[in-house]
């Protein structure tokens, strides 16, 4: 029996996207800001409807799509991101485009695509969701068509994106040939039946899939598109790229590798460990040299992706329990990272709207001219660096501790070292704001109440996760559980 009710939240989101477009169609004089807030409201309704799915028994749609806690987790995350980004976009897009409705509609559609990347239990479904997300993002990156940088970014993104999709697809087809199935369960069974011998076909298939998803989460050496796309895209879309697109990529990777591929972990886990090491090191070292804020954030987020990839390696190296622990760590770190990034971009967008500056030097003296924004930026950067009281401290402890196994201690050590390197370039930004006086002519300025509330709210979120991570961590564990059904409750069972 086909149960269509599991799609209700996405009916709302996709329907709302059409509604937003229709509103502009029938009421062409509607205020552009209104559309942004309408979209945020839609995302809110979408998120609330998703709350009803928490803790329900997992429901499967024909074995293709699974609605469980893991899906719900990403529903909530995606809804939150869409809401925050659309509010951010209101003031940014105001003077920059005449056709705003499609922009906001695409935000919601991209959110739906993310959910299905998390929910997919079949390769074709996963691939279509991935492409749906990518196409939304290609358009959004190039949305400022009169801006050459925006168009260039979109072109680069499309070309490399198509290339990586092709690799992903090729890997999928090889895998289908080897296992005779496209469903995750079928692949898992096929791999188990194959025995433990290593042959070239399976390794090539895994490496191709890894390259395809590696591109989506911008893991080095597949990261080349990210800095250009980040720099050229409208600023709220840069935030969107570095949060939603990465969350979606990890949602796909997590379910695919922990459910379908884990039986053959020996064939791919080394590749993930290597990918994690290269990604975090390259991201953080290149970030040191950046002078443009968007590029700096691009490389810093590549570094963050490197930390998160350790989890996937840990899933490969450990048993189900280690997988559960590591994935819980990754999911909570993802929340901390997303909230910190959104807070950072809320502040940067506000500043950019006011001054048109998006370089590190451009922040000079911000502590004098707009202390509130300086605090928000500092808080989010310190959170990235993993300093206490901010989300990054607690979530990094959970992420790294969860992934610590005998085989991966070196990688965790490298990640800690990288966090230390990252602190250097974050301090270089903070230095501009606090240690120098503003350039001549810059005086104190006010910011709009909406952006103030958004930035303050996100900053409080960063602090809340940092100070009281318990509930979020529990939620992350519940979300990870469906992926690791055989996991034993660790810790708790061992308590005296």
């Amino acid at each position, binding site marked *: 029996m086909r149960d269509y009710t599991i799609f209700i939240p996405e009916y709302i989101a996709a329907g709302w996207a059409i509604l937003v477009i229709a509103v502009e169609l029938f009421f062409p004089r509607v205020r552009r800001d209104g559309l942004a807030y309408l979209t945020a409201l839609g995302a809110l309704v979408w998120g609330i409807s998703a709350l009803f799915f928490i803790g329900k028994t997992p429901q499967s749609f024909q074995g293709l799509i699974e609605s469980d806690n893991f899906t719900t987790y990403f529903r909530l995350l995606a809804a939150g991101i869409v809401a925050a980004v659309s509010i951010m976009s209101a003031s940014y897009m105001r003077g920059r485009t005449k056709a705003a409705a499609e922009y906001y509609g695409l935000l919601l559609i991209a959110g739906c695509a993310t959910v299905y990347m998390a929910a997919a239990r079949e390769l074709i479904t996963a691939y279509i969701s991935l492409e749906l997300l990518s196409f939304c993002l290609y358009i959004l990156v190039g949305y400022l068509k009169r801006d050459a940088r925006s168009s260039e970014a979109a072109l680069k993104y499309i070309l490399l994106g198509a290339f990586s999709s092709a690799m992903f697809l090729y890997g999928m087809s090889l895998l289908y040939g080897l296992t005779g199935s496209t469903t995750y369960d079928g692949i898992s069974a096929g791999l188990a039946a194959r025995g433990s011998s290593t042959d070239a076909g399976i390794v090539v298939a895994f490496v191709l899939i890894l390259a395809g998803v590696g591109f989506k989460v911008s893991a080095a050496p597949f990261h080349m598109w990210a800095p250009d796309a980040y720099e050229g895209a409208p600023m709220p879309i840069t935030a969107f790229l570095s949060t939603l697109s990465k969350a979606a990529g990890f949602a796909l990777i997590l379910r695919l590798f922990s459910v379908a591929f884990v039986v053959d972990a020996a064939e791919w886990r080394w590749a993930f460990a290597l990918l994690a090491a290269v990604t975090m090191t390259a991201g953080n070292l290149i970030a040191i040299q950046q002078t443009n804020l968007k590029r700096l954030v691009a490389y810093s987020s590549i570094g963050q992706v490197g930390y998160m990839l350790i989890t996937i390696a840990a899933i490969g190296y450990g048993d189900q329990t280690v997988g*559960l*622990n590591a994935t*819980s*760590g990754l999911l909570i770190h993802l929340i901390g990272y997303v909230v910190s990034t959104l807070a950072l971009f809320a502040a940067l967008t506000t500043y950019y709207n006011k001054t048109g500056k998006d370089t590190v030097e451009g922040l000079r003296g911000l*502590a004098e001219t707009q202390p509130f924004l300086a605090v928000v930026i500092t808080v989010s950067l*310190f959170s990235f660096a993993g*300093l*206490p*009281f901010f989300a990054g*401290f607690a979530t990094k*402890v*959970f992420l*790294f*501790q*969860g992934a*610590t*196994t*005998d085989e991966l*201690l070196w990688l*965790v*050590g490298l990640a*800690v*070292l990288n*966090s*230390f390197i990252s*602190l*250097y370039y974050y*301090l270089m930004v*903070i*230095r501009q704001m*606090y*240690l120098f006086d503003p350039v001549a002519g810059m005086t104190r300025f006010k910011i709009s109440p909406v952006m103030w509330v958004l930035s303050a709210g996100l900053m409080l979120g960063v602090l809340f996760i940092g100070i*009281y*991570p*318990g509930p979020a*961590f*529990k939620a*992350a*564990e519940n979300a*990870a559980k469906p992926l690791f059904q055989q996991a034993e*409750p*660790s*810790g*708790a*069972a*061992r*308590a*005296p």
Partner: protein
Amino acid sequence: MTFDEGQGYIVLATLAAPLLAALIILFIPSEQKMAIRYVSAFFAAVMLGLSIYIFVAYQVDGEKIQMTLKWVWVENTAFLGKDGITLHLAVDGISAPMALLTGIVAFAGTITSWKLNYRPKDFFILYFTLLAGVYGTFFSFDLFFFFFFYELAVMPLYLLIGVWGSTRKEYGALKLTMMLVGGSVLIWIGIFAVFHEANLGTFDMQRLFAAGNDGTLSPTFQKVFFPMICIGCGVLAALWPFHTWSPDGHMAAPTAVSMVHAGVLMKLGAFGIIRLGIQMLPVGAEFWMPGLMVLGVIGALYGATAALTQRDFKLISGYSSVSHMGYVLMGLATMNQIGVTGAVLQMFSHGVMTALVFLLIGALYDQAHTRDLKDFGGITKVMPVWVVFYTIAGLANVGLPGLSGFTAEFHIFVGTFRAYPVFGALAIVAAALAAGYMLRMFAIVFFGPFNIRWKDLKDLTPLETMAGGLLIASIVLMGVWWAPFTDRIGQTVAAIPGVIG
């Protein structure tokens, strides 16, 4: 609620006071400078009072750790079992004097900063955040929170030095922050490894101490990870050769920050070696202690020698701190009762006397705008009180009987002679060098021909005198009546496995 639980809330209040102060100041408009100062002074006084209470109320014949407060933070989630992460605050015989030290130095630093006029609001917010980190580290018996507060104490330094500092402040601030956080990298890795190896599902330090003792943390593991944790913490304790941030950082830092930093923060490093090193990894500690002894002696000699040739007041104190922290590390490395007790005594003693020295240097520099020894001469004529205070601090530094330095160094030397006689002899040489650099400075600055350029120098303000008086009282107290300190420290040190009587 039992009595001990009630006491636990006092410990919590001591930790919460600086955080509350920072929060309240956050909501005072920055133009209300006087209000900010009064609030700061009030909370500093509260912290001092609570710290004294904790020190006095600690029962020498009581439990090993007292005034316990345990709040579950996260448990039964993923890798965390029961009591996975708890806000476990308590006091033992080592943290009691350290809390007292923090209270004294923090209060002195706050009232010394009374005249600070450039963005006092931001300054005090960061300053109190730092103090919360210091208290938290001393009180935490949970590895997660221990490190949480440890990092919290380091974090505000970059801005405190970078914004309010002096000589080469950007360089000093960045160097200091990066070196200290670099040390944290090693501690992080150690913590992840310990949690994984112990496999208890909890960050509770008491259970991890037990694990270190009963072999759950295997001897090989301890030997591999002790150096990591020891060097990681050692960076903050100015362990040679990782001390280079100390002179530059101190030179750049504003007065109150120098006081708190040299007075209290550097002790966090030595405290970390005791907690995470000696108490948690006793086998590793025993194995590596000769190495720490060598580095400690080199630090003591090197710091003293370098101080002999400096011309900047703050550099002299910076290098003398390296030398004195070298004694602390030597005391720890003896692994015998008297030596380790001496190390903790020295942490206290060095804390109060360095705070006094930096207070006095700050008072001079604010007027003279130079710290070059050669610029001064015959200062006694214009700043008599200043000279008296400085003399007391200097003599405590040298180890004159009757002052705190003597008590501490005597314990350390006795301990060192018992364990490693050769190094004991070298330590005495370092003490002699200390006399050399102190007396050289006295001669150049206090006496000698009076430089007419300084005829308008004012003596200490009443507030500075008060802060200095408080510090001097502590120096003298410990010099003449050290039983309250040695009782408390000794009781805890005797219970540390691996420490011989």
